[in-house]
């Protein structure tokens, strides 16, 4: 039988559905009878879901793209210069 400390160690695996079947069942059984661990799991789940809502748009402006492409052009020209 898993204790509460074990549950906190397996909480992420449980939420990510990565635990083996029997371990998952043991966690579920513990959660049926332990309100503190239920709270812990719910809080961890809420934390992970809140993070998912912070997703940032990583697209960049045309100006930034131009700047990088120009930097690369210059770098290319320097690489192509014959060594003296």
């Amino acid at each position, binding site marked *: 039988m898993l204790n509460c*400390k074990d549950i906190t160690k397996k909480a992420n695996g449980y939420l990510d559905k990565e635990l083996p079947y029997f371990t998952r069942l043991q966690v579920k059984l513990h959660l049926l009878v332990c309100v503190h*661990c239920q709270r812990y799991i719910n*809080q961890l789940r809420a*934390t*992970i879901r809140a993070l*998912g809502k912070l997703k940032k748009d990583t697209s960049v402006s045309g100006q930034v793209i131009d700047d990088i492409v120009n930097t690369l052009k210059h*770098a290319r020209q320097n690489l192509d210069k014959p060594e003296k």
Partner: protein
Amino acid sequence: MSHRNLPSDDELIPKLLENDETAYRQVVSAYHGMMIYIARSIAGDAIADEVAQEAWVAVLKALPNFERRSSLKTWIMRIVCNTAKSRLRHESRTVSIEDSLNESGDMISPTRFDERGHWSSPPSIWHAETPDSLLASTELQTCIDRALKELPPLQRTIVSLRDIQGMDMELICKIFEVSESNARVLLHRARSRLREAIDKYQRNQD
């Protein structure tokens, strides 16, 4: 990432090797944003742009030797990751996976449990307990942002890519050249620290 219309690596790589500007524009447009994001997570806001730019030049130089053991995207992201890590090393800050794994590993302080492993100091009741309510409070959002910034660089980067940006765990492992089990250890520690930070904030509101 805006790379849905990006040609395949087979098409792109020869064009990049020929210095085709359109091809460069396509890859920069598809990957630069994510590179900045990774650079920022590892090395911080101040030098993220510089790191990404340095990484592009490294990509340009190394491309003729690219052996295609991974996709172009993974290879480019690995270069930005290594560039950011090397910048941090210059500042003597911890970035190796070994150091990150050796950092204190307890998800929760052992003093919160009794000798039988049951809670002696159980989790407090949160006033805000849904993801939306957690983010509705500006102060709580600031608390989450601060907790993210205070995480060790690799933990911060992995939790940001996985839980915030929704990146595939397999790709994260390839970029950071870590095993899936090590990546998970870092992810789990990061999440637990973030939960603890929210918990502390909510307890202080009582």
